[in-house]
């Protein structure tokens, strides 16, 4: 029990001591704990760092190799492309040279062919010459035609004049105006006069007017007049009178005599005299039957009837007058026919 009491007496001191020691340990515990932690962490850190260092070095080797590999690949690619580009440039150059030559050739041969152009231009000038020549010929031909027409017209005029002036022809006795005795040879007009026929005084045919004269008012117009016009200003008279126009027409109707009335009484004698005068006028020779000396010599001798026939007496006129054809006589046949006639009537 004493120990117990001693122990119990020591208890609070123990307790306090316990507390004190735990507390003291506690104090140190934190410190020691922190120190331990520090040491451990440092050590661990060292370990890890060493490990990392190791890893790093390893990784560096790997990465070194890997990057070298990548870089070589990349370089290889670059070299290939550069080579490719170089090749393409070269090919382009060569292609340009070929195309240059070809295009120059093609253009010179086909598009802007100098020689073809020259030939074409020469052909054009040749063609032009031909065309000019032909056109000149055409123009000359037209000129000639025109001249010919003019000449013909002049000739016609001259002929017409000569025909009109036929009376100026020279005769044996009287030399005409154009055939003066002092000239060596007669004037051409004289020759024309000799050739031409005298012109009879007939009406010239009316020239046909062109249609375009019509509305240009170049000539006076004639419209067909059917009826004479009635007098102006006459008022219609009252009553059952005939139309004024009709009356006037009837009153002033022109005379249209028949042929018998129009012919005069002694027209027949006059006509006969007229014919005689014309015949007397027209005949050139009065002595119509004047023989020419050689005319009789050419005449053949016609013997008379007496001389041309036999030297007998002609039986005609003495023995018989007419021809006689007994076969045509019907006198004996008449009886038969009359017999037939009678029988037919019954």
């Amino acid at each position, binding site marked *: 029990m004493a120990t117990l009491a001693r122990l119990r007496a020591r208890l609070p001191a123990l307790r306090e001591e316990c507390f004190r020691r735990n507390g003291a340990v506690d104090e140190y515990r934190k410190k020691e704990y922190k120190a331990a932690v520090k040491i451990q962490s440092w050590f661990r850190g060292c370990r890890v760092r060493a490990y990392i260092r190791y890893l790093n070095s390893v990784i560096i080797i790997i990465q070194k190799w890997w990057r070298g590999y990548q870089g070589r690949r990349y370089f290889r690619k670059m070299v290939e492309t550069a080579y490719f580009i170089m090749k393409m440039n070269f090919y382009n150059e060569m292609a340009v040279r070929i195309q240059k030559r070809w295009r120059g050739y093609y253009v010179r041969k086909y598009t802007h062919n100098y020689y073809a*152009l020259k030939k074409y231009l020469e052909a054009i*000038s040749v063609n032009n010459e031909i*065309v000019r020549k032909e056109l000149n010929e055409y123009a000359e031909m037209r000129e000639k035609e025109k001249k010919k027409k003019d000449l013909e017209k002049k000739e016609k005029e001259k002929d017409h004049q000569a025909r009109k002036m036929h009376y100026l022809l020279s005769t044996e006795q009287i030399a005409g105006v154009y055939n003066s005795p002092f000239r060596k040879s007669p004037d051409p007009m004289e020759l024309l006069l000799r050739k031409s026929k005298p012109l009879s005084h007939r009406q010239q045919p009316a020239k046909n007017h062109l249609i375009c004269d*019509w509305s240009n008012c170049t000539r006076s117009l004639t*419209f067909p007049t059917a009826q004479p016009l009635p007098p102006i200003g006459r008022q219609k008279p009252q009553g059952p009178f005939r139309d004024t126009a009709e009356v006037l027409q009837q009153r002033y109707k022109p005379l249209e005599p028949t042929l018998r009335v129009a012919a005069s009484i002694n027209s027949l004698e006059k006509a006969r005299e007229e014919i005689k005068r014309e015949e007397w006028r027209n005949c050139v020779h009065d002595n119509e039957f004047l023989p020419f000396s050689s005319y009789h010599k050419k005449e053949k001798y016609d013997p008379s009837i007496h001389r041309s026939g036999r030297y007998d007496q002609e039986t005609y006129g003495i023995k018989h007058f007419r021809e006689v054809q007994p076969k045509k006589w019907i006198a004996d046949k008449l009886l038969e026919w009359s017999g037939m006639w009678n029988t037919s009537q019954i």
Partner: protein
Amino acid sequence: MTLSGDACFLLRPGVMALLRPLLLDVVPTIQQTAALALGRLANYNDDLAEAVVKGDILPQLVCSLSEQNRFYKKAAAFVLRAVGKHSPQLAQAIVQCGGLETLVICLEDFDPGVKEAAAWALGYIARHNSELSQAVVDAGAVPLLVLCIQEPEIALKRIAASTLSDISKHSPELAQTVVDAGAIAHLAQMILNPDAKLKRQVLSALSQIAKHSVDLAELVVEAEIFPVVLTCLKDSDEYVKKNGATLIREIAKHTPELSQLIVNAGGVAAVIDCIGSCRGTVRLPGIMMLGYVAAHSENLSMAVIISKGIPPLCTCLMEENEDHIKAAAAWALGQVGRHTPEHARAVAVANVLPTLLSMYMDTHSSEDLQVKTKKALKNILQKCTYLPALEPLLHDAPPNILKHIVGQFSKVLPHDSKARRLFVTTGGLKKVQEIKAEPGSLLQEYINTINNCYPEEIVRYYSPGYSEILLERVENYHPVL
């Protein structure tokens, strides 16, 4: 019904009011004579024509046209023609009172005189503008006119051809209508007819058809007018030549292929001869045709040069008095010379550049002439390397032309030593030194290029005022004794 100068006096007593009832007279001769009087009055003066329209005479005429005899029809058509020829408003009045249908009915008549009068009236109406032409076409006149062309009477053919020409000149659609009626074949056949006035009208009609578009021109060409048309260029009548040249011009202006066709047929030579033989405005279509052909391509231009086209153009430029013909000749020369140095050389050798320059500088020339000569000069000078022809121009040219001349020198001189020598001996270098140019301008660059072709002493020798400098040096020189 005599036509006197003081016909307006007849207006005062109201002659229209007097003539109008006579148109309805019983006697046909009176009607015809009254119509003829109206026609002559309207023909003389457009005031009288207006009085005819205002006097309400046209409806009566139109109504009675259909049932009367041929003399009345001729007279009435004459009135309509006389009224319609003065102005579009009067022609419109005729259209409004229904005159076109009756005229078309007259075209179907048997008498050729009636047909001619009706066709003439339609032609004068259609001449004014395209609406009236369209009205004439809508009335159905075109097929009948094509039939009229085939008639044997020459006067009727002439009038029908001139009417077709008047109809087709306004627009491509009208020309197409005329072509659809089959007119081209008949017109092409009539080119061979010997009558000169008919040829005038036929060529005019074909050229009015061909001028509108490429297709119409090709249709005209397919009617085989070449080379027959070239004989028309040799005709004795001036207007036949003019209209023939007009036709060829209208065909040539559309495309290079058509121009090529004309060149191959020898058309260029014929036109050049035609230009050489005519004087005055008759030449103008031929000149323009050469210009159009040369404008298309350099081969065609070379063809024009080979066919000896430049001398006639030069003579035209120098001889003619009218400015528009000169302007056309200058334009044509510009088109010929603008393609390559060869062409420019051919033009320059003909010694025509000084003439062009003088016309450009002349104050009496019209604006148009000045503009055209300037363009022609510029075009030719930009390609000209023939230096002897450029020399004389150095002395007279104004600055804007001088720029081109000096430019050409600066292009040629660096490469050709003989030319350099010639340039010095003819005084060109001296002239170039005298030119005052703004520094930095194109002219100054050209001058510098030229100066660089020569050694410095020579350039200094020819610079203006050099003699004074030398004399000053003489003055300041102290002789060494």
